[in-house]
């Protein structure tokens, strides 16, 4: 097996692992956000709903971008 190609594969896998780890972190933040927004809503405080939804959208876009990144590495 070509050692250079092998090294490239290993590095790509490291990059993909980092992306997946970052994705998990974003997801944990989003989970906390949903819980906090729901708690505020149930307490009668509706002011947190809009910022919560906007931040959640940003986090989703971040997750989607990371997925596209992983997918692109897979396909190249």
């Amino acid at each position, binding site marked *: 097996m070509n050692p250079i190609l092998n090294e490239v594969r290993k590095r790509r896998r490291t990059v993909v692992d980092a*992306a997946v780890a970052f994705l998990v972190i974003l997801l944990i933040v989003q989970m906390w956000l949903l819980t906090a927004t729901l708690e505020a809503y149930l307490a009668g405080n509706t002011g947190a709903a809009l910022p919560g939804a906007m931040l959640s959208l940003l986090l989703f876009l971040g997750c989607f971008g990371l997925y596209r990144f992983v997918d692109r590495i897979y396909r190249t």
Partner: protein
Amino acid sequence: MPTNTKPDRPLWTEEFSVYAPEDKFVLRRQFSKFLVLTSFGMLAGNVWILFRSFLGRSNPKYAAKEIGLASQLQRGDVRLFNYPTNNDPCIMVRTRSGKLAAYSQKCTHLSCAVYYSKNENRLECPCHEGFFSAEDGTVLQGPPPRPLPLIQIEQRGNQLFAIGVVENREKS
């Protein structure tokens, strides 16, 4: 390792590869896809909350229910009843100030039954020491995130009636 040099491979081999290094990539990609779908689910949850917030929360109407005589409740006395259904325990208190107040008996933390402490003039949850004001049901201390739902009372002569439940009061 997938490359563009394998165009004649059937599609299913992309997801079920026989090559170990390629399989690791597939696993990570599928896991990422699952995480993104979960993220989308949580975004949908946030949007649902936003939608509900714009609509506004309304308190449902319930039929009036007789809950006893006002003259039987002296200061510091308590009466337990169920409203609006038999599965909704409530507590009515004649507070130290003489005010008659009724609340849902379920603590807003984990639904333990609250009881009235005559000495402290407050409603106490024995599970995690969450305390509520007997005057207005607001949280005084502990883990409860919101006030106790308020049971609206109407006095007709000497007779007391529960006429509604108010749940979405602002956090104090």
